[in-house]
């Protein structure tokens, strides 16, 4: 609000409640995370060590990447209950062609991702052309894919991937000065994007909210990045899987925030008929969203396979998707993505996955049983959505 162009109306000072339902929507989740971290730090001396925080991040990537892909489908007011099964099937398929047919991982990985995208777009076709609700189509498809996954597995019910080169995805870290270089490139790209927006606003003679639009976003991104990289380099450096997640977050954020495709996702999710009347190809858009969710789920499956050094019945969360499916949906929702479409930003995948990862990691350190973890995660899911509703009620502002 530094400066107001002469012919523009005065920039209205916005109330805190309005900000809570728009720019600062992430605030309650961030505060929640801080509370969780304080709690676990008080319970365990190990929690805040670089080693544990690195582990926590790595443990959160698979669910985070799954949630990121799923977001595209949730934004258009659909759901894909087969993402975990896609994750499992494609990783088993990939392992099979590597182990039995001698494919190089460099070939097998893209094939697996394309297979995931193909499966996703098939369910979208079924949803849009036949008109069966997506939760039915993808529930059925998920079970069918679980069956296929079991068929593809050998007698031993497991393919080991050690020695295939695939394990290097999980074992590689970028350390020392390289880590800082990676961070500098990331911040540089983000700053370039922000500054190019500023440049075009200046060219168009529009006001430039310097503090809010330039200093705060770049400063916050830099501070957050430096903190994370400092913690990670204090242990072993930036794990490759964390870097992959970060790159996906960057690309996803750009697509959702800056491009026409991203805007169409939000438009279709809120009012598909209005979008159609304005010339948006709704069926094509949904197909792309499901393809992205499927392809990204396959990528998450590959990372999971690399971390566990193999695939089996358990891949993709096991039959029915298990906790992987539920945690992926929960992560997106905790992060602020609406199941009714048209609402949610890219940070949802990161924050949601961090909440789930933190609970899991922290309770594990406290020696608490898995049952408790499920109860706490489920409770947090309901709590996150409830807080959102309560803020809407208290402020009378609907958040979008």
């Amino acid at each position: 609000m530094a400066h107001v162009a002469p012919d523009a109306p005065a920039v209205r000072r916005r109330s805190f409640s309005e900000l809570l339902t728009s720019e600062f929507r992430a605030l309650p989740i961030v505060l929640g995370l801080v509370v969780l971290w304080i709690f676990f730090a008080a319970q365990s001396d190990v929690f805040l060590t670089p080693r544990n925080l690195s582990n926590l991040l790595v443990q959160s990537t698979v669910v985070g990447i799954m949630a990121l892909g799923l977001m595209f489908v949730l934004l258009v007011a659909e759901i894909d209950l087969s993402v975990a099964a896609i994750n499992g099937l494609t990783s088993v398929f990939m392992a099979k062609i590597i182990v039995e047919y001698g494919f190089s991982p460099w070939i097998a990985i893209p094939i697996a991702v394309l297979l995931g995208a193909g499966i996703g777009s098939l369910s979208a076709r079924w949803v849009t052309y036949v008109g069966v609700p997506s939760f039915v189509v993808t529930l059925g498809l998920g079970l069918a894919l679980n069956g296929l996954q079991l068929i593809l597995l050998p007698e031993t019910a497991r393919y080991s991937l050690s020695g295939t080169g695939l394990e290097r995805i999980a074992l590689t870290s970028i350390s020392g000065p390289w880590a800082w270089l990676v961070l500098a490139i990331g911040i540089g790209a983000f700053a370039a994007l922000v500054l190019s927006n500023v440049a075009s606003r200046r060219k168009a003679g529009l006001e430039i909210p310097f503090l809010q639009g330039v200093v705060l976003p770049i400063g916050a991104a830099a501070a957050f990045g430096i903190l994370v990289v400092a913690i990670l380099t204090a242990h072993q450096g930036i794990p490759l899987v964390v870097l992959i997640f970060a790159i996906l977050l960057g690309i996803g954020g750009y697509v959702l925030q800056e491009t026409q495709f991203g805007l169409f996702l939000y438009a279709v999710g809120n009012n598909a008929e209005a979008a159609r009347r304005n010339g948006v190809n709704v069926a094509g858009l949904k197909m792309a969203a499901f393809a992205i969710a499927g392809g990204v789920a396959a990528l998450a499956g590959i990372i999971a396979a690399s971390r566990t050094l193999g695939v089996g019945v358990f891949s993709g969360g096991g039959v029915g998707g298990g906790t992987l499916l539920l945690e992926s949906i929960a992560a997106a929702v905790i992060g602020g993505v609406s199941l009714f479409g048209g609402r949610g930003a890219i940070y949802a995948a990161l924050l949601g996955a961090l909440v789930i990862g933190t609970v899991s990691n922290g309770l594990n350190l406290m020696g608490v049983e898995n049952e408790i973890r499920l109860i706490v995660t489920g409770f947090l899911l309901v709590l996150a959505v409830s807080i959102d509703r309560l803020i809407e009620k208290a402020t009378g502002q609907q958040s979008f």
Partner: protein
Amino acid sequence: MGVETAQRPNTEVRPSDTPLVSMRNIQKHFGSLHALRGASVEVHPGEVVALVGDNGAGKSTLVKVMAGVHAMDSGEYLFEGKPVHVSKPTDATELGIQTVYQDLSLCHNLDAVQNLFLGRELTGPRWGGRRIRRAESEVRAREVLTRMRLGGMSLTRPVGAMSGGQRQNIAIARSILWTPKVVILDEPTAALSHSAAESVSKLIRTLADQGLGIVVVSHDIHHFVVNSTDRIEVMRLGANVASFKSSEVTGEQVVNAMVGGNVGVNLAG
């Protein structure tokens, strides 16, 4: 009663110019429901045509056929005197026919600029993933809104957080953003307060004075229809039953034509 029976909409109004849009003898079924039974309407440059009729008369269906939302079963659709094929919304918008739907067709999670340009975003190159040129869009949006004397409207608030009158204005602004020749408005004043409705009717007249053809569906017979339009087409059960010059008719006469003396007929079909 001064009720004429359905005939060619009067060429007396502006004999000199070809109608911008002329639709004749339109038939439309929804399954077994016969929604349009030979309905007709035409609009000339600078003219405001009102479509009136009881609920279910087929007004919305007729304008949706004009807008390309529904394809007609049969009938004649001329644009500037030439037969055209309009079967989807973009066919109509490419001809210069813009529609403000009864439900406004806005996305409540998007802001005014995003709604104004929806489906026709100003974008950058393909390699950049068709990045939206936000700054230019804002400038164009501000221009249009200023022309509509709505210069103070927020461009960044989600439309869902705005009042009904503001949403109506955004929907109208969207229709004129691309300098159309014809604007169709379905019940533009129905959901508005008295003063907001007044300003919308002023706006409609301003647009007609700039040479646009306007087709308005309205139930506001006694105020808006008789005072702010040029010609009135009365529809009943999917067909035209009367046609008036707005300056030569009273609200009572229009209402009589709408109900056709057959009060109690099940108009819902």
